[in-house]
């Protein structure tokens, strides 16, 4: 069971709700993935445009809603977005993300730490999206974050675990769940993250932008389960030379 703050989850796959062609498809992907945590965003309302009924079906699914602060470029903006999201969804759970640079969407570590420290004091359950920096992840943990969400690669880049060596250190040191966020483009990437000992992964683009998002959601769910089981089973070490699996008898040789 995955435990974050006081809540437990059977599923170790978190879903991002963006980029799905329709909200029906997003709901079907949620069902297919058995995910129990889904991220949402907040933005200014466009007046005279009908409000779409995004939340009612998710509320029925009994899934933890995790609003993010996407769009915030500073700690101050993120705190404002967090307070809005808390009122909009009546939850103190928050995915903190601050990425001022639109090209790579790299999280700003300094603003993220500043915001995390304040948001924890304001009573939020803070899950920060952050660089795969072991020192930063430790500082975020010490600030009271309920989990850390280091990136595998740039958001939406589908490049997999580019930060693998750093993730290993983060996982080794962490006292809170490490959720690998961003960059996971294939179920094999998610399985690899779970094999490293990640507590969970968050996937959005690779599912939502697939030609069959519902089937891909199920594929990611399988991969996350397989990776977790392999981690628990204990992966064998790699060797430089061959180590035979069959007895090397000399029965083919003439006696």
């Amino acid at each position, binding site marked *: 069971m995955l435990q974050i703050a006081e809540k437990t989850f059977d599923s170790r796959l978190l879903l*991002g*709700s*963006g*980029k*799905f062609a329709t*909200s029906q498809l*997003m709901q079907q992907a949620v069902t297919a993935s058995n995910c129990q945590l889904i*991220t*949402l*965003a*907040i*933005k*200014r*309302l466009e*007046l005279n445009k009908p*409000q779409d009924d*995004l*939340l*009612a079906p998710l509320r029925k699914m009994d899934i933890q809603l995790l*609003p*993010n602060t*996407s769009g915030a470029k500073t700690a101050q903006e993120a705190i*404002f977005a967090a*307070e*809005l*999201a808390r*009122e*909009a*969804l*009546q939850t103190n759970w928050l995915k903190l993300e601050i990425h001022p640079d639109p090209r790579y969407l790299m999280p700003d570590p300094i603003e993220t730490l500043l915001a995390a420290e304040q948001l924890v004091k304001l009573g939020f359950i803070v899950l920060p999206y952050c660089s795969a920096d072991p020192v930063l992840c430790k500082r975020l943990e010490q600030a009271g974050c309920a989990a850390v969400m280091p990136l595998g690669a740039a*958001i*939406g880049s589908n490049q997999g675990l580019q930060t693998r060596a750093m993730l290993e250190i983060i996982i080794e040191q962490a006292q809170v769940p490490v959720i690998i966020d961003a960059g996971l483009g294939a179920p094999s990437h998610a399985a690899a993250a779970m094999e490293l000992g990640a507590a969970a992964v*968050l996937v*959005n*683009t690779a599912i939502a932008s697939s030609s069959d998002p519902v089937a891909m959601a199920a594929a990611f769910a399988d991969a996350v389960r397989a990776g977790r089981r392999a981690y628990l089973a204990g992966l064998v070490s790699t060797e430089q030379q061959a180590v035979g699996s069959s007895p090397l008898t000399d029965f083919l040789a003439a006696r």
Partner: protein
Amino acid sequence: MHILLNDQPLQLSTNCSVSELLQQQQLVSEGLAIAINNTVISKRCWPEHKLQSNDNVQLFQIVTGG
């Protein structure tokens, strides 16, 4: 009195509450958040919170996102 609603000028009767404004705009409160003069107004205060002349009212809504 005049207020700004997401940058649009709007004429309101005096003593209009946040809840009344939302009703008038035919907005449902689920997934909605409101800030007045850059201060977030708690949902439980919406029925009593009276808007003041020249208030800068910003409405936000939950949308999909990763």
